[in-house]
């Protein structure tokens, strides 16, 4: 029983992080019908920005509210800007080309980022060396939130532990998801987003600035990804350039399970995936985790090809 509760908590915590990344996939797919394979790598870039900010601000600010906020805000803003750049220069010129072209570009950007970040590049300015690209080796993520147990009940052998990062990431993720829901359904920008998602050509005819809406969607998704990446780095205490590939793929699976293009679907899919993985690791062995996660995807697609919350769309040929 205690074991079950513990796995439930761990699974939900992992699921919320996947959910934040999955939202980026699903939003971009919603407006553009593009699977942005570079999304996970944008997340990785956000984590390294957070790493750099934490490093520059110094150890004495770790663990303080202001310090944590600074790391998150700078990293999310930087990522939003980065998402904007990628959209502007890589995807926008290809928007009227066949969809496969953008997809290949997305994979290209993903490779360029994850392998580019494995290069060592430092410049020497006025005697101090500045690292521009971090190199391939894993680095320890600064302990801006020191992982510790917030809550424990039960005795030594039979106990349930809730970690501070689990609570914090759950709260941050929940707040961002509620915010996103409000944005999509209660604001002008959200209405524009939904209109573009419905049909961007008609939306353009009706005077909606399609380019700006799409750029905004990319910025939003990238900022959420940066936040998710930081939560992940705090949890697992290490960062490396390939982390984006791995988490990105999992989040993509979560988005597909939930029905890609559907915002609540992405969250449910991510939580289901997080729980599924945690129970597999907890009750069998970690080598089964990925097999079961992807098996779950196949099962869902067999039973409901449009995903749990997806709509069936008639395809015009």
């Amino acid at each position: 029983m205690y074991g079950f509760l513990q796995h439930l908590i761990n699974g939900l915590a992992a699921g919320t992080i996947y959910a934040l990344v999955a939202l980026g996939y699903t939003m971009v797919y919603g407006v553009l019908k593009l699977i942005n394979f570079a999304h996970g790598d944008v997340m990785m870039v956000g984590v390294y920005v957070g790493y750099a900010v934490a490093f520059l601000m110094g150890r004495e600010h770790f663990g303080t509210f202001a310090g944590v906020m600074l790391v998150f805000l700078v990293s999310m803003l930087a990522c939003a800007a980065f998402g904007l750049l990628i959209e502007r220069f890589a995807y926008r010129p290809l928007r009227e080309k066949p969809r496969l072209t953008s997809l290949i570009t997305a994979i290209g950007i993903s490779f360029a980022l994850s392998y580019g970040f494995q290069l060592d590049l430092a410049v020497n300015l006025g005697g101090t060396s500045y690292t521009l690209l971090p190199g391939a080796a894993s680095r320890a993520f600064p302990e801006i939130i020191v992982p510790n147990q917030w809550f424990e009940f039960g005795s030594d052998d039979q106990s349930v532990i809730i970690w501070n990062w689990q609570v914090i990431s759950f709260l941050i993720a929940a707040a961002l998801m509620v915010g996103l829901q409000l944005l999509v359904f209660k604001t002008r920008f959200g209405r524009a987003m939904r209109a573009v998602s419905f049909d961007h050509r008609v939306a353009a005819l009706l005077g909606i600035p399609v380019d700006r809406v799409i750029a905004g969607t990319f910025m939003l998704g990238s900022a959420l990804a940066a936040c998710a990446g930081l939560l992940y780095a705090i949890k697992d205490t290490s960062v490396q350039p390939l982390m984006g590939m791995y988490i990105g793929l999992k989040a993509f699976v979560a988005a597909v399970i939930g029905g890609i293009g559907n915002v609540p679907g992405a969250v449910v899919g991510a939580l289901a995936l997080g729980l599924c993985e945690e129970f597999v690791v907890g009750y069998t062995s970690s080598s089964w985790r990925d097999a079961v996660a992807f098996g779950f995807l196949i099962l869902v697609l067999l039973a409901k090809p449009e995903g749990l919350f997806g709509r069936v769309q008639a395809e015009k040929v």
Partner: protein
Amino acid sequence: MRSILLSAFAALAVATLGCEKKTAPVEPPKPADVKPLEGKPAPAPAADTGDIIIGEVGSLTGSEAAFGISTRNGIELALEDANAAGGVKGRKVKVIVYDDQSKPEEAASATTRLITQDKVKLVLGEVASSNSLAMAPICQDNKIPMISPSSTNPSVTEKGDYIFRVCFIDPFQGFVMAKYAREELKFKNVAILKDVKSAYSVGLTEVFERKFAEMGGKVLGIESYAKGDTDFRSQLTAIKKLKPEGLYVPGYYNDVGIIARQARELGLKTVMMGGDGWDSEKLFELGGKAIEGSFVSNHYSPEDPSPQVQNFISKYKGKFGGVPDSLAALGYDAANVAIEAMKRAPDLSGPALRDEIAKTKDFPGVAGTISMNEKRDAVKPAVVLQVVDGKFKYVATVKP
């Protein structure tokens, strides 16, 4: 992970091409598209002049990048020394390095490329046993000698008579740590956390488990993880419940650092032990205080006062900065063994080089004296080091 993505992408591409075939027929490739590959100058067909080309495959990127980079540095240093001293048979030795991204399939294709395209005389590499195991059959089939600087899994050199190594093997390394844990640290029971994806980790676990039991100790439980995992809390919680005196983690530095941190967070205070896979400066960065007091078996200690070792260390520091780890030392040794064999060999054909490498005896390497045995493994002592103040400190030498 990458291959999943690629195959998903390939399936998608095929599907889309299938649909679009009617409107846009696939054009046959133009001759211009294929030309660059053929146009590449054939590397020195006249084999008796010009530079001698040898190949190296290493993990310059990916999860074990620190290993590959150290090894490459060591090899570079050895070639620089050899070329400064006149080279081999009056010719300079040049190395072509390919990155395998820490993946066996990439290591295999890099090896094929070195042998068939670059026509190298011999191949140096890899560090991780899983990668060396992928390379060995290719070298064997092409009769090109391969020297692994630091793959310790026994099956690497069992792939054939062209495969050598300049380090000791896992049965010895596992024995060293089991013996030290049982006799010096007086542990009665231990737990093991192994990486099921790495031949190195699985092999060491097997030996340690058997030897420790033979010496009267008890292995309480074996938990496993897979390379690439970053959350080890479930496994560590299970280990904590066993209350072992020692925890043997025969993994690579990048995983070990995180494992140590998460173990200490969970309140698991057990002394940790490991193998040469821990040896990287990165371990101290990743593990921080959590790895203090741990013990590892290793190939060499930078504290060795012999002039040869100290000379190597000062040269390395001057060129790359930082104290060379054992991977750098073994890379240096592997390259030197290769160079010596090339100097002695009557010609640079595969069989001739193979025979000379096999004859290596009492070669003074920086990581111990190297003699090849009949299984093409180097026979040499191991050292036990302890992590003290973020550094490896020498504690004992164990002879074979």
